[in-house]
């Protein structure tokens, strides 16, 4: 059995393409205030694992409905033959400029598609709609009407009264703002139009729910990775031992800030891509760093040695040399050789590290001073990153693909504060995870485990932000 198709039809500029964009999650659908933005019927098959479960068909709006109805009435031979008559209308006027729109929108219907008639609940019903609805009735296909208020929904009830005369099911849905659950409800209603359509549509709805859960998990993972990266990021610069470090502090700070913003921006783009918004513009205030005194300095030596390492290695070497003397004396020295050798070696290591730094091998210094900016130790830093990211996620997840214009993320401190206070248990848990991430190295299991836990914690936070009850408000599930 072939998958059901649903033709989205109606008057021009009533949100047909918006409905398709929202349900098909396709931000590339052209939506505009000018009539005739959609000029051809366009199919949006919903596939799960390659299997088509249903197809949405976006169609151009009626342009000459009264003339088309006149033709149908002129050739009418009775109610039973009306669907065939509509088919004949399409066949006879195919390729004709005059009824191009009507043929485009009726072609999928005569091929068996269910009818989804879209009207604007913010503008009043008028007699010009009667002809459209009459033609659709003549097709004999299962139908459903959607009242889509493009603005203040002043005329929903008059519309309902008018539509109920032509359609068995009438739904009200603001397709620009419709939450995910309402979109699913509408899809389910599509499936209920005909018994044989119910199963594939239910299957599709289940897949969409599963996909949504995965999107949320993926977004949480992206946010966790971003936080981990930001928490461990540092800018370093090796300078000569006697060079003034203050000359480099500003550039290090700038680089550090830029990188943190890059991490955030990259994560934002990824989260947007996860929800299918690949090219959306974003309006968000840049993060301001919570601390500026992150500059530190340490000596460095070639081969990754630190002064401490050099002391240990020299002391060990000295002790071994002293041990040889002890052995030669057959233990009569009572390990004095090892002790003295160790002390002398350690002292030599300690005092020679500075000298080593002054040496140059192949014109490369063997040591110097390493300036380091970051990582941030501020306990609030990861929480601010997290809250900003969760807020951005909430805006992205709530956005439909019919919305145009920039994504506005109002991440003011007040808005962040209003996101909801974390419980003490969760705050502690998160702080512990952040500390684990700070200490972990990339490519290690410890980091992978910490990232997993953080991902789970973020998922729970995102559910809370979306209004889904948290099953474990006091902290993460124990493992």
């Amino acid at each position, binding site marked *: 059995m072939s998958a059901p198709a649903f033709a989205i039809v109606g008057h021009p500029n009533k949100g047909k393409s918006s409905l398709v964009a929202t349900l098909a999650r*396709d931000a590339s659908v052209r939506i505009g*205030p000018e009539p005739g*933005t959609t000029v051809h019927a366009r*199919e*949006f098959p919903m596939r*799960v694992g390659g299997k088509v479960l249903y197809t949405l068909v976006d169609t151009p709006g009626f342009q000459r409905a009264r003339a088309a109805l006149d033709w149908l009435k002129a050739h009418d031979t009775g109610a039973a033959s009306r669907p065939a008559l509509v088919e004949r209308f399409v066949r006879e006027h195919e390729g004709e400029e005059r009824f191009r729109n009507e043929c485009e929108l009726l072609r999928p219907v005569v091929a068996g598609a269910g009818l989804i008639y879209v009207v604007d609940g913010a503008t009043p019903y008028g007699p*010009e709609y*009667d002809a459209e609805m009459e033609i659709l009735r003549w097709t004999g296909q299962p139908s459903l009407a959607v009242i889509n208020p493009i603005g203040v929904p002043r005329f929903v009830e008059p519309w309902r009264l008018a539509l109920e005369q032509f359609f068995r099911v009438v739904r009200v849905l603001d397709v620009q703002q419709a939450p995910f659950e309402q979109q699913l409800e509408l899809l389910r209603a599509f499936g209920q139009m005909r018994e044989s359509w119910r199963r594939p549509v239910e299957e599709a709805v289940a897949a969409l729910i599963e996909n949504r859960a995965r999107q949320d998990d993926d977004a949480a993972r992206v946010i966790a990775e971003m936080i981990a990266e930001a928490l461990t990021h540092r800018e370093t610069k090796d300078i000569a031992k006697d060079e003034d470090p203050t000359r480099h502090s500003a550039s290090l700070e700038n680089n550090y800030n830029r990188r943190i913003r890059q991490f955030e921006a990259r994560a934002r783009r990824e989260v947007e891509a996860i929800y299918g918004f690949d090219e959306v513009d974003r309006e968000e205030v840049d993060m301001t760093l919570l601390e500026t005194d992150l500059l530190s300095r340490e000596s460095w030596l070639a081969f990754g040695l630190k002064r401490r390492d050099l002391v240990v290695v020299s002391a060990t070497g000295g002790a071994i040399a002293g041990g040889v003397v002890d052995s030669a004396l057959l233990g009569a020295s009572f390990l004095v050789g090892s002790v003295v050798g160790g002390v002398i070696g350690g002292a030599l290591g300690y005092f020679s590290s500075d000298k080593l730094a002054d040496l140059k091998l192949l014109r490369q210094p063997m040591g110097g001073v390493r300036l380091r900016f970051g990582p941030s130790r501020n306990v609030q830093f990861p929480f601010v990153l997290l809250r900003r990211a969760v807020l951005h996620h909430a805006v992205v997840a709530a956005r439909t693909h019919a919305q145009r214009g920039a994504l506005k993320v109002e991440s003011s401190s007040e808005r962040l504060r209003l996101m909801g206070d974390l419980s003490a248990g969760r705050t502690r848990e998160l702080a512990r995870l952040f500390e684990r991430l700070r200490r972990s*190295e990339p490519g*290690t299991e410890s980091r992978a485990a910490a990232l997993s836990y953080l991902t789970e914690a973020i998922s729970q936070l995102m559910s809370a932000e979306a209004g889904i009850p948290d099953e474990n408000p006091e902290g993460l599930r124990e493992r």
Partner: protein
Amino acid sequence: MPTSVHSQPDIADVVVLARALERDEGRPPGELRARERRVAHSVPPDGAPESVALAWLEVVKDEDEAVRALHQRAETAVHLTGFFIVLAGMLLGWGATLAAFYFDGSGRVNAVSVLALLVVLPGLMILPFGLAALPPPVMRRIPGGGVLAGLARVFSPGRLAPLFWRIFPGDLRDALALLSGRLGKQRQLYAALQKWALLRWSQMFAVAFQITALVACVVLVVFTDLAFGWSTTLTTGDPAEDARRAHRITSAITAPWNWAVEDARPSLELIEESRYYRAASEPVSREQAARLGGWWRFIALTIAVYGVLPRVLLLAFARSRLRAAARAAVLDAPGVSALSRRIHRARIETHAVEAETGAERAPVAPDAAADAASPAIARDIRAVINWSGVPVGADVLTTAFRGAGVFAAGGAAAVHDDLALARQLGANVDGAGSETRGDVLIVVKGWEPPLLEFGDFLKTLRGAVGRGTMILVLPLGLDAGVALAPAAPAQFRLWRDKLAASGDPWLRVIASHAEVSA
């Protein structure tokens, strides 16, 4: 399509995955998406990222000859490295055993030397392994730990691997660039993988050494006549006490198998009899040699339990760590996380199959000057048409446009009625048959877009009234019933721009009825 989806990456997978992801950076997004869709159908919906990445790699290998060849080279290089390492361990094990069991019939094989060379010394090498195996955070806390771990790795037999790579063909060496640390920018990411690859090879070497030593020991015992003995400088002065001490030591050593193989513990008598002094070496009689051979079970089991067994366990441990490191490396490799997400997303497709056709129209640009109502033009309006049932009473229109006839068209009216009205207006007569002159004004719903059927009507009307007669279109707002409220500026612009496309110089869209009211 991949024939099987496995979830445990090996070294070759990690190497090739990193390279394949790099190669994809320059490919067109459409091509990548098509491939991800194909992969999406072959991975389970709840597949972990590493499984997804490996499934993706299988598809890439199927499609890309270069990636497939690289994978084969990497696998070959890894297997060849293991082979050479094992071979080196076997050769050293065989050589060491021959040296330890050297017996020319004039003396005895010193059991202590055998065990020192084949068990104790190799056993000491576990220490650097343990040091190198410590997790980096622990190592950092030990002063000089990094240096010691580095030294431990330098002395690890796994270091033989890079030596063998020197004799490998260039393409095999290149396949191992990631492991040899030549990919500097990814050194940190693959550090754990490199470490555990090295340590696993070390344990493979050690296992090969110990098993060969054990086998060689058994072979020598079976095919040659060995007389074992023991000797020491650290003596109590009492040979009987020395023997008892040695017996206590051998009893402790044999504790793990005493319960099962009692013969494998040297008896006190055997220990007493097998002690020898180099300074006073005596030839061994045939009967004595046969008795002294009784040590062999003890020696073989000591090698097996204290040499082979720990190394096998350590090899298993290093192998499991390497697998974990490979998995972590895959998970952390740049692009894998995003790849997994894209593939899972590709399982569900809802987008249009074909791109939107037709040129995209530019949005109606705000034009403040044009939006402003034009100065009033005193026109003689002879007819006002309410198009498509604008909710405004005829009396309101009559009051606003005095002397003009009010008509209805569009909406509920039939198309032929519209034509009749056009003809009537073209005849310049009013409803009562009186002759009329002047312009025609059509009020329309500003909130509805201008349709083609309205364009048809305008054409018909123009044909009927002829050139020179002004046709004015007044879009009204939602509250039209109240003093002919004008349409919103955006709606007005839409109507103005749409009708401007007709090219009729006597057609004008007006923003307000005040523009034409007397």
